[in-house]
């Protein structure tokens, strides 16, 4: 038996570890460093209908135990991803979760319709939480009704299960989670980045050219755990958790909080081998905890 296997809507995962969207490109770079078939899945960079240039630079800044980014969804566009990126990934035995973004509902729908037909795309991740674009993105993720409608519209066209990625920049994430569940989401991924800012010490001006950026890394882990803890207890769909995961212990924490699988973002920049390293370390962690299969840990923070 594979002690790490996880089954989620549309996804048969060898293990619950996958790189988070935007932190792994379309796999080509890390694919030179290790065998991508080791991964549970890959969440590819957000894909929009048209190619996007993204924001001006600087796009990243370091913060205590974290970083800010304002990439602004730079990507080669739907056609580029369908023609160049996804076919390249087919050489690996790994399911792809396609992160879908847009400016209006029609964009999301169009991208979802097409990208969900790619043979290796096993699920979509609806990005209604990107804080770094002026239109779309987070505006879809802060209003429950809009989030529900968008989810339903995408569900109607997608050939694969739809996960919705939630923003932590809301008063009540439970409300948004319930809304997307009503909209037909097959799963939830959370959290996207918190909004933050860093100033240049000398000039006092924002370092990030886009002024604000999304905060990720260990600094946000407590916020992510708390939201997953709350949401997982009220929805009936699985959660893929993320936000500051650096090592195998963090993975255990996220599963304990209620996530069924996890994504690793910022940590890839710190250690490009972090995903395979975690996968390797997990069985020993299970032994320590006296657990046979990793799924036994899911939600143990509130299960008696």
């Amino acid at each position: 038996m594979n002690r790490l296997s996880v089954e989620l809507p549309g996804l048969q995962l060898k293990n619950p570890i996958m790189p988070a969207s935007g932190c792994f490109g379309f796999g080509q770079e890390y694919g030179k460093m290790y065998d991508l078939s080791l991964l549970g899945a890959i969440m590819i960079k957000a894909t929009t209908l048209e190619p996007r240039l993204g924001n001006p630079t600087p796009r990243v800044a370091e913060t205590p135990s974290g970083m800010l980014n304002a990439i602004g969804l730079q990507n080669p566009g739907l056609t580029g991803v369908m023609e160049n990126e996804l076919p390249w990934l087919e050489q690996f035995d790994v399911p792809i979760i396609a992160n879908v973004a847009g400016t209006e509902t029609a964009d999301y729908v169009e991208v979802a319709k097409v990208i969900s037909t790619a043979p290796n795309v096993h699920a979509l991740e609806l990005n209604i939480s990107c804080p770094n674009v002026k239109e779309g993105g987070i505006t879809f993720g802060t209003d429950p009704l809009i989030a529900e409608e968008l989810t339903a519209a995408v569900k109607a066209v997608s050939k694969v299960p739809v996960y919705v990625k939630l923003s932590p920049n809301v008063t009540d994430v439970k409300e948004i989670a319930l809304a997307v569940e009503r909209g037909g989401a097959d799963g939830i991924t959370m959290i996207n980045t918190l909004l933050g800012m860093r100033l240049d010490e000398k000039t006092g001006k924002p370092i990030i050219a886009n002024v604000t950026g999304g905060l990720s890394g260990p600094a946000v882990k407590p916020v992510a755990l708390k939201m997953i803890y709350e949401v997982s207890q009220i929805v009936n769909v699985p959660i893929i958790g993320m936000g500051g995961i650096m090592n195998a212990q963090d993975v255990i924490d996220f599963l304990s909080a209620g996530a069924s699988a996890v994504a690793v973002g910022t940590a890839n920049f710190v250690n490009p081998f972090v995903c395979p390293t975690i996968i390797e370390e997990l069985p020993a962690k299970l032994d320590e905890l006296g657990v046979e299969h990793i799924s036994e840990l899911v939600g143990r923070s509130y299960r008696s």
Partner: protein
Amino acid sequence: MIIQESMLVQSQREIAHNIFEMKLQGKLVQEIQAPGQFIHIRVSEAFDMLLRRPISIASIDQESDEITIIYRAEGDGTRSLSKRNEGDRVDVLGPLGNGFPIAETKAGEVAYLIGGGIGVPPLYELSKQLTAKGVTCVHILGFQSENVVFYEEEFKALGETYIVTVDGTIGTEGFVTTVMENLSEQFATYYSCGPQPMLKAVQEMYANKKGYLSFEERMGCGVGACFACVCKTTERAEANYIKVCSDGPVFPAGVIAI
């Protein structure tokens, strides 16, 4: 191949005010393809300073598996790096990026190597390799002030070397362009690394010459995956940005919009 390695600090010394020279030993040295490539250094095991720091490879000794880096201890990360001692280990990812093309200058030709401040280091290995091949190197090196000048003797040993400082405390007073104005344009290729305004001035002055420029941009991954370090290209305004970390940091003159 890019590898991640815990490299051994062979030595560390302050060679100018806040400028440190560190020698690192490890097997990634065997992977280096060209001068101008860089390494991505984790400056602390703690999460405080999460992002790696990109630092150019200043000198390569493949026989002893050793590289030299030269960096300014300015922010928190480089300051912390400057406290490592001989025998310590440093977590390094590399070699990264594409360096300066040596092949673009033939034996017997003249190359101008133009560096500014902390952009000077990669030119040292470049000069060593060009000189070894029979290229005549002329070095034009600009600094703020005398107290931050480094490697003057090392460059002189390789060829003609002009030092220029903004405050005139040593060498010519002014900018690298002040020296360039008085130099012949009888050279085959120029190679340059330094602050963007300098690169811009150099490129303009030598507009009809073959040249290679090394760029800097804030980085996330350092390997091409995160789209943090992009620059606009001159070619098509609506085209994709180009990545400094994996497409560069060295680009032929004219490629990047500056």
